[in-house]
């Protein structure tokens, strides 16, 4: 905790007490002033100005400002235009058109165009897509690269140990396609518009709305025109309310509205906490001579040590030009606060097995996103009055296969199929104003999604042993390949990722090589390639529940891990103008919406909320 020499015992007690209080709206304001009064030796410059931390009804600058919102009604509102949300929307409209029923389906998406915030490897298993749109090939779905070669390696610093991919192992990719997920999502968006879905990219769902009886009523989009200091600008306008009989939340991994819903409806009381990884990705235009279209390469081992989960991917696309998609995944349960996933990625590219492919090539894109690793054990309760969760938001990723798109899409389709009869029934049979559809969870449990996730449930947790990576691989070989996951026990995860960091003084800093500008690059030029930008004059959307904790705790105990795990350089500890001490500077404009900070912050002080819609990365076919 806090070093006793710096603070008086009174402050010590005070802060310990305050940390136990659940941070609802009013308390952080109280808590920061109390904290500041008690620890008068530290003056924290104000960082957070967002209204979710400093409510506007108590703010004199907002007196007299019109806060009424325009409201509209739909039958179904879907939050998130990714594979799950779009699959659900398409399936709903397919059913409506088939049964000749009128159904208004509205989908809101924070990206400025559908697909602009999508980032994935990716090797797609086309099962769910074929179920949704059987004639996807004729309709021009961008699945252009069937997998032709599958290579798996364990890397050491200089060498490579090949691992044979025998049929039956989860990472075998026969029958799958290498896709540019952003392009597939964009195509799904076009299919959705064709069947009559109302798509609204550029508008973020910022708030969940509730009926009097506590069920979900819909969502409200973000307000616009709030200045950086939290005051209203001339062009301030309230967001819009979209009411629906049922709302589907498909925000992807670690959605911010889902985070609120877990608390409100106690959805996580019977499951393990979700665990995550961060995936960083680049697209490279390589020398034609090195191009092997359809080739899939995966590796584990170097540069990570055997106790840090992670690995790499490198896929050769076949879309007319020598393009490869490559990237690196690091499990966010890593313990060393000096670890930088970005720099691990950059130095992995220099390995003798990887560098030759990239030599003479040109990097054209960069991005990053968190992904789920909790699997079966971390699936929460999926339905609640007025809404349900689909896709990577509750988390259906098959971790050893490193695929979650097919299960996400299937969950969206199952949701649509469960909702449709209830929506179009003669009488709306519901105890609550918002529809409750527990049938969705039932259908999911009886589907291939459940069976698939059950079979691989023990692979990821099997890495938590002394031999780390090697123990995990042996476990997979015995219990998955031979016994197909039928062992009667279910291994547990280690707890939340945020709790895994060891204090900095117990760990050794890692010496990373300098980027050479040809194969490896520095962080800021990478962020520029993501095309990310936000309207500058708005409150930072990386909100801190308590502005003083970063310097006091994150920097004090863990040496500021957020400056290392953020793949976009949002967090920087800079010296105070007065010379003594540091402060946290949040460069919110750089944010690529990966959600890693909200997941990995050891103090769980960072709360990612949605910025003004349309801001964020501008990925193109990532």
């Amino acid at each position, binding site marked *: 905790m806090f070093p006793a020499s710096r603070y008086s015992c009174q402050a010590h007690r005070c802060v310990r007490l305050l940390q136990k209080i659940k941070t609802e709206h009013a308390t952080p304001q109280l808590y920061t002033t109390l904290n500041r009064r008690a620890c008068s030796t530290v003056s924290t410059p104000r960082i957070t100005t967002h209204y979710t931390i400093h409510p506007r009804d108590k703010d004199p600058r907002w007196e007299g400002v019109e806060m009424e919102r325009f409201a509209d009604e739909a039958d179904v509102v879907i939050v998130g235009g990714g594979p799950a949300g779009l699959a659900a929307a398409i399936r709903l409209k397919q059913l409506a058109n088939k049964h000749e029923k009128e159904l208004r389906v509205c989908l*809101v998406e924070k990206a400025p165009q559908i697909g*602009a915030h999508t980032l994935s490897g990716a090797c797609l298993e086309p099962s769910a897509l074929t179920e949704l749109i059987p004639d996807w090939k004729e309709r021009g779905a961008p699945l252009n690269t069937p997998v032709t070669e599958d290579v798996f390696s364990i890397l050491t610093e200089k060498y490579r140990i090949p691992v044979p991919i025998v049929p039956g192992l989860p990472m075998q990719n026969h029958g799958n396609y290498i896709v540019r997920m952003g392009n597939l999502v964009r195509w799904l968006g076009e299919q959705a518009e064709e069947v009559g879905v109302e798509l609204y990219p550029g508008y973020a769902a910022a708030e969940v709305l509730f009926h009097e009886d506590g069920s979900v009523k819909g969502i409200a989009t973000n307000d616009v025109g709030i200045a950086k200091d939290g005051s209203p600008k001339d*062009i301030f306008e309230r967001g*819009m309310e979209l009411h629906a009989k049922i709302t589907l939340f498909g925000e992807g991994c670690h959605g911010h509205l889902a985070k609120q819903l877990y608390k409100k409806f106690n959805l996580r009381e019977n499951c393990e906490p979700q665990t995550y990884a961060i995936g960083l990705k680049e697209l490279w235009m390589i020398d034609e001579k090195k191009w092997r279209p359809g080739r899939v390469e995966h590796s584990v081992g170097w540069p990570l040590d055997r106790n840090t989960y992670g690995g790499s991917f490198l896929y050769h696309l076949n879309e007319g030009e020598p393009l490869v998609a490559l990237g690196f995944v690091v499990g966010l349960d890593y313990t060393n606060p000096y670890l930088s996933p970005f720099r691990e990625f950059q130095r992995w590219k220099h390995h003798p097995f990887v560098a030759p492919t990239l030599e003479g090539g040109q990097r054209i894109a960069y991005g990053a996103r968190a992904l789920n690793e909790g699997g079966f054990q971390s699936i929460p309760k999926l339905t609640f009055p007025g809404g349900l969760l689909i896709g990577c938001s509750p988390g259906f990723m098959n971790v050893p296969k490193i695929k979650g798109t097919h299960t996400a899409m299937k969950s969206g389709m199952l949701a649509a199929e469960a909702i449709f009869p209830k929506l179009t029934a003669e009488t709306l049979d519901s105890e609550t104003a918002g529809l409750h559809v527990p049938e969705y969870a039932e259908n999911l449990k009886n589907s291939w999604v459940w069976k698939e996730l059950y079979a691989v449930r023990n692979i990821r947790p099997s890495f938590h042993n002394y031999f780390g990576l090697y123990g995990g691989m042996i476990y997979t070989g015995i219990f998955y390949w031979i016994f197909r996951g039928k062992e009667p026990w279910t291994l547990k995860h280690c707890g939340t990722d945020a709790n895994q960091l060891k204090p900095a003084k117990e760990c050794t800093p890692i010496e990373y090589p300098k980027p050479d500008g040809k194969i490896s690059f520095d962080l800021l030029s990478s962020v520029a390639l993501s095309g990310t930008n936000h309207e500058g004059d708005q409150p930072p959307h990386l909100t801190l529940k308590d502005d003083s904790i970063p310097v006091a705790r994150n920097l004090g105990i863990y040496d500021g891990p957020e400056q290392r795990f953020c793949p976009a350089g949002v967090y920087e500890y800079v010296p105070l103008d007065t010379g003594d001490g540091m402060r946290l500077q949040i460069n919110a404009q750089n944010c690529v919406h990966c959600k890693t900070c909200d997941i990995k912050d050891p103090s769980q002080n960072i709360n990612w909320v949605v910025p003004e819609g349309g801001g964020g990365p*501008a990925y193109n*076919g990532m």
Partner: protein
Amino acid sequence: MSGRVLVGVKRVIDYAVKIRVKPDNTGVVTDGVKHSMNPFCEIAVEEAVKLKEKKLIKEVVAVSCGPQQSQETIRTALAMGADRGIHVDVSGKDYENLGPLQVSKILAALAKQEDAQLILLGKQAIDDDCNQTGQMTAALLDWPQGTFASEVSLEGDKINLVREIDGGLEHIKINTPAVITADLRLNTPRYATLPNIMKAKKKKIATVKPADLGVDLTSRLEVLKVEEPPQRQAGMKVETVEDLVVKLKEAGRV
């Protein structure tokens, strides 16, 4: 006076995106890249809508020349308050060769057709930085032009304008009908909020072809090559003035 204002809006690659030159050096990659309305066009639309709100003009018509996707840009203008849109359908090779001269001819033809009292444009587009369309349109119509406007006020059938020029601010008074191009400080554009986007879906966008307007799209310019700017060479630090002179002599600069 018809009280009608024509506002030109251009769909350009978003300013925050890192552009890439196509491998064949004929242009930049646009496929799938994030596009948005040219920032100066947003300011022009905002000014037109403000004039309508002050009841100084009756109708705002948003015009864009380009392929099918230009309709999204017109929808944004409609969501900001324009009344209807005109999409001049230009695609393929014609679109690649579309420059200020052709657009001015189109705008001039539309202005006559729509009996416009005022044409509001952005001062330049952020992709080609030409800063020519407003001026050419005025010339073709033989109308007065108020370019780089940072303040616009209507006074009867005349317009008072403040222009941002190199020497400072110039105040001019011009007759209507006229062409005005918007500069950065003219106003702060409003957001196109969701309820307005939904309402905009009901507003009309008419599609016309340049041939219908009697406009010839042939370009007098031929793009020979597009290439990236040369890589910036690293600088060198020297310790003393003598070293500096030696280095400059070596580089042949002195």
